[in-house]
C-alpha cells in the first residue's frame, strides 16, 4: 500500500518541487553580488551535474556490479543499469548545455578545454559506448554481462572527474557550495533553493528511471512472447 502510494506520489511531488525550484530560482532569490542573474544557473547546473555524474552513473554501476555477482544476478539489475545509463546521458547533455550557457558570458566562449567540462563530455561518450554495445549484441546474457563490465570501467572515470578541478586547476569554478574548511559559501534563501533543486532533480531522476524501466519491462514481455512463438515454430520443424 505504502509502495503504491509512494509510486503514485513520485510524479506529482517531483513536478511540485521542480516548479518551486524554478519559482524560487528565478524570482524569489536575489541576484548574486558578482555574477548577477547568471548565478541563478546555480539552482540548476550543480543539481543536474550531481544526477548525471554521481546519482545515475552510481546507480548504473551498483546495478551492474549486482548483476555480475551471481547471488544478485537478475534481469532486473540489467534493466536498472541500462535505464540509469540512458537517463545519465540525458543529464550529461543537460550538464554540458547549462555549463555552456554559464560559460559563454563568464569565459567568453561556449566551450573551454576545462578539465571538469571535458571529463563530463568524456563520460557522455562512455554512456554512448555503453548503449552502442547493447545495440551490437542480441543475446541477453552476453549483452548484460558486457554492459555491466563497461559500466564498472566507466565508473573508474568518475573519481577522475571529481579530482580534476583540484589537480588541474583550470577555468572551472571551484566548489560552489562549500569552502575548503567545509563551511557553506551560499547562504539563506539561496542555500535553501539550492538544496530544493538537488531534491527536485534527484526525484526527477527516479521518476524518469521508473518510467523508462516500465518501458523495458513491456519490451521484454513482448520479446518473451515472440520467443515462445519462435520456440513453438522450431519444435514444429521437428514434427514435419
Amino acid at each position, binding site marked *: 500500500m505504502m509502495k503504491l502510494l509512494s509510486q503514485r506520489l513520485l510524479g506529482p511531488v517531483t513536478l511540485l518541487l521542480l516548479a518551486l525550484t524554478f519559482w524560487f530560482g528565478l524570482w524569489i532569490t536575489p541576484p548574486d553580488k558578482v555574477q548577477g542573474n547568471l548565478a541563478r544557473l546555480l539552482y540548476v547546473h550543480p543539481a543536474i551535474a550531481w544526477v548525471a555524474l554521481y546519482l545515475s552513473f552510481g546507480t548504473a554501476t551498483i546495478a551492474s556490479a549486482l548483476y555480475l555477482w551471481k547471488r544478485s544476478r537478475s534481469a532486473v539489475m540489467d534493466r536498472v543499469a541500462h535505464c540509469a545509463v540512458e537517463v545519465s546521458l540525458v543529464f550529461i547533455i543537460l550538464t554540458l548545455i547549462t555549463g555552456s550557457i554559464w560559460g559563454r558570458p563568464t569565459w567568453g566562449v561556449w566551450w573551454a578545454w576545462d578539465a571538469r567540462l571535458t571529463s563530463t563530455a568524456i563520460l557522455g561518450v562512455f554512456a554512448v559506448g555503453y548503449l552502442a554495445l547493447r545495440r551490437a549484441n542480441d543475446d541477453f*546474457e552476453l549483452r548484460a554481462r558486457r554492459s555491466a563490465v563497461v559500466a564498472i570501467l566507466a565508473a573508474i572515470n568518475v573519481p577522475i572527474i571529481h579530482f580534476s578541478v583540484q589537480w588541474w586547476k583550470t577555468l572551472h569554478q571551484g566548489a560552489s557550495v562549500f569552502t575548503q574548511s567545509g563551511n557553506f559559501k551560499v547562504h539563506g534563501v539561496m542555500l535553501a533553493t539550492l538544496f530544493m533543486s538537488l531534491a527536485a532533480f534527484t526525484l526527477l531522476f527516479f521518476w524518469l528511471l521508473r518510467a523508462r524501466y516500465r518501458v523495458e519491462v513491456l519490451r521484454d514481455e513482448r520479446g518473451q512472447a515472440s520467443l515462445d512463438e*519462435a*520456440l513453438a515454430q*522450431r*519444435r514444429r520443424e*521437428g514434427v514435419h
Partner: protein
Amino acid sequence: MVALRDAVVLVGGFPLLSGVNLELSSRSLNVVTGANGAGKTSLLRLLGGLVTLTSGTGVVSGVDLRGDLRELRRRVGWLGHEGSFYDDLSASENLVFAAKALARPTADVPSALERVGLSARTSTPARQLSAGQRRRLGLAWLLLRRPELWLLDEPYASLDDDGRTFFDQLIGDVVAGGATVVVSAHDPLRSSALAPRTITLAGGLVVSDRS
C-alpha cells in the same frame, strides 16, 4: 555421463535447441545426425559447455550445466568443423601450447603427431595444412588431452578414404579406452564393428534414437 531434460538453448532470440531430452552412458559411441540446421552442432556445443542452457536441466560429466562451465570444458575435447588452431603457429607449436596449458609433458607432442600421420608436418604453419590435415591436427590435440568426453563435429568432412578408415580405428580405440564419444555426422560410420547409437535431431529436438 550426460542427462538432459527439456534442454532449450536460445542464441540471439533463436531456439537452437527446443527441448532436448537425452541420456548418454559412459564408454559409449554416439552419432548425432540430422539435416542442416537441425541442431547437431548446438547439441555438441551444449555438451561441451560452449553455449549456456536457457531453460531445462542438464548434467554432463558430473557438472551441472547451470554451474561452472569452465570446469566442464576442462573435461571435454572439442573438434569443430572450423579451424581450431592458431594459423601462424606450426602444428608442433600449437600442440606444445596445448600441452603447456594442460601442464602435460611436451615430450608427448611428437608421438601424438605421429599417431595422426603428421610427423612430416611438424614445422608447417597451421594455415598451410590442408583441411584434412587440420582435422588430423585436431585429433592430435585431443590425443594429448585424453578428455572423458569427445565431441567431434562432422569429423569426416575433408577426410579422404584413408583418413576415414584411420578415424574409425582411432574412435574405436578411444571408446575402448573408456571415453564417451559424440560425433555429429551426415554420413554413417564406415565401420560396422563400432555399432554406435544413432540419435536423430530435427527442429532442435530428438526425433529418433536407435542403438
